[in-house]
């Protein structure tokens, strides 16, 4: 035991001196990690406990609730139903869009009730996610490329993009509600007379436009930060070798900015999947702009347990999307953020 001497003085293990850790590292190194581990657990404890209370406990309780029947008057039938264990009935009801029938058993939910909206809400949520994230990525990339150039007034542009980001979503929603009002500036500017929040596609596009306006800056800043990591010499060398602008973009910019880009897309995708404020205030979820989050909120007052099942489904969907991103598309968030800490001792 005494033959291996680490960089720090060897402390005798507390309990009887039994050599617990035998590894390639010296004993001292090992002790150091142990004592750092103790320190770390004390320092991390408040955060972990706080998150356990405000996140882990509600999740578990939501999962428990989701397997219970809702007591009270069934909104679809008007009959009183008792609580009690429900098995997976709540989940089946959502996925199959079933409601309990007056005579017992289940029937398809009548159109217009919350139960009949699961798949349309899912489709709407994914539509918003795919469309907004696509626009935000393309626009954000373009903005970042512009902001990465040197020109007079660059800092003004960089400051300006922070303005939409700083405006609270609730205010953004009201602002665009006003812009898209029938007599509002959007219709006047394009000389149209569209009832923007009055029918399905205008309403959807209103939400998309407002969301793209609000969140593209965030995307642009993340991508810009990635662009700035690329050393200028790489471009110089490529230029000398005769690479065209398009080649430089495709062969240097894209691959080198990819890690930052993937993280930005992942953040935005997960954010878009839980979209709530904007459609809730802008369109009230009318005309097929109800997202899964809005559906959960509308369900809460009609039955906790069914709402808990729906929120669990939403959670699982978001988790799966995150998993696919990290596993198959290489958005390595933890490595990205944890990599530097390791080099220093």
């Amino acid at each position: 035991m005494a033959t291996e001497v680490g960089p720090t003085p060897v402390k005798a293990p507390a309990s009887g001196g039994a050599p617990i850790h035998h590894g390639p590292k010296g004993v001292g190194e090992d002790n150091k990690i142990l004592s750092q581990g103790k320190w770390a657990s004390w320092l991390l404890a408040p955060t972990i406990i706080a998150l356990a209370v405000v996140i882990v406990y509600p999740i578990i309780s939501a999962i428990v609730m989701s397997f219970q029947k809702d007591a009270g008057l069934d909104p679809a039938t008007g009959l009183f139903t008792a609580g009690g264990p429900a098995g997976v009935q709540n989940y089946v009801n959502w996925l199959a869009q079933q409601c309990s029938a007056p005579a017992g058993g289940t029937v398809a939910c009548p159109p217009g009730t919350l139960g009949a909206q699961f798949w349309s809400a899912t489709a709407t949520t994914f539509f918003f996610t795919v469309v907004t994230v696509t626009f935000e990525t393309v626009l954000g990339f373009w903005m970042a490329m512009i902001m990465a150039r040197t020109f007079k007034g660059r800092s003004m542009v960089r400051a300006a993009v922070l303005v939409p980001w700083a405006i609270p979503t609730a205010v953004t929603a009201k602002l665009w509600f006003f812009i898209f009002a029938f007599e509002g500036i959007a219709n006047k500017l394009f000389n149209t007379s569209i009832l923007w929040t009055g029918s399905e596609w205008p309403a959807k596009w209103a939400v998309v436009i407002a969301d793209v306006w609000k969140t593209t800056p965030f995307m642009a800043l993340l991508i810009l930060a990635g662009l700035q990591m690329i050393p200028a010499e790489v471009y110089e060398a490529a230029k000398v070798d005769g690479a065209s602008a398009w080649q430089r973009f495709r062969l240097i910019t894209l691959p080198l900015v990819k890690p930052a880009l993937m993280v930005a897309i992942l953040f935005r995708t997960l954010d878009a999947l839980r979209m709530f404020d904007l459609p809730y205030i802008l369109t009230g979820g009318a005309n097929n702009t109800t997202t899964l989050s809005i559906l959960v909120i509308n369900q809460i007052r009609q039955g906790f347990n069914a709402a808990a099942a729906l929120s669990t489904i939403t959670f699982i969907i978001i988790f799966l999307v995150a998993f696919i991103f990290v596993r198959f598309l290489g958005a390595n968030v933890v490595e990205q953020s944890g990599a530097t800490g390791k080099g220093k001792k």
Partner: protein
Amino acid sequence: MTAATSSATSLRAEQDRGRRKAQNSEKWAQGRTYISAAVILIWCLAPAYWMVVTAFREVGFTYDTSILPSHVTLDNFNTAFDTSFGNRFGQALLNSVFIGGVVTLVSLIIGVFAAYALARLNFRFKYMVLGFILGASMFPGVALITPLFQLFTNIGWMGSYQALIIPNISFVLPLTVYTMTSFFREMPWELEESARVDGCTQGQAFRKVIMPLAAPAIFTTAILAFISSWNEFLIASQLSSDATQPVTVAIANFAGAQPNQVPYTAIMAAGTIVTIPLVILVLVFQRKIVAGLTAGAVK
């Protein structure tokens, strides 16, 4: 001899032409950059500008289309604070400041220790903890709201401040830890080591050397935390009461004199009041905030 001279002149001419061409294309590229920059500026600022301009317009000219301020009045700001239609905008402002302040303070106090550990110490499960905190920051709010709604109903917390503050911490704390961890990684930790060589304990070195140096990072994180809490709507829209609602909820539910008429100018005035402090804060601390926002996404 002459052939060599003429080839030299033609070479020079070609070089000149090439240079001029390069200069021209550079000018052209520069011009395009300015046009693009102008487009970005207009796209980002025009809607926000429209809100401010409308906020200063007389109600009768709500839909006025002149780009410059016209029919200027301050009435809308009075209307925004007017409580006779059931709006409690002034109270909501105070609520938001209070909730945001408490959430920010608690998150910072708890989070600074975790960030220090994650940035500085080596321990097992470090990546698991980082992953857990990151996962928490992307967590959908609706997954929390149902059980909290029931829990707070049962224990009579509905509409109380703590019912708004506690869930908010779950959103803000991960963000705080995450941002501060990346800030802490870039600090000159050699100073801590020299302090320890000079006989400080790790705790003392942290308090006396690192904390003063970390102050700007902590301040930036505080701004980000406050903004995130200030913008929160989902939890507040369900768990707050008329007395405790924050500004986001107050603005979303803003009512006018007539039920069928949306009081646009007053809403824009309220929106302006809510937004201007944030925008000023963000513009003043622009560099730091961008660093904080993008921290972690790139090393």
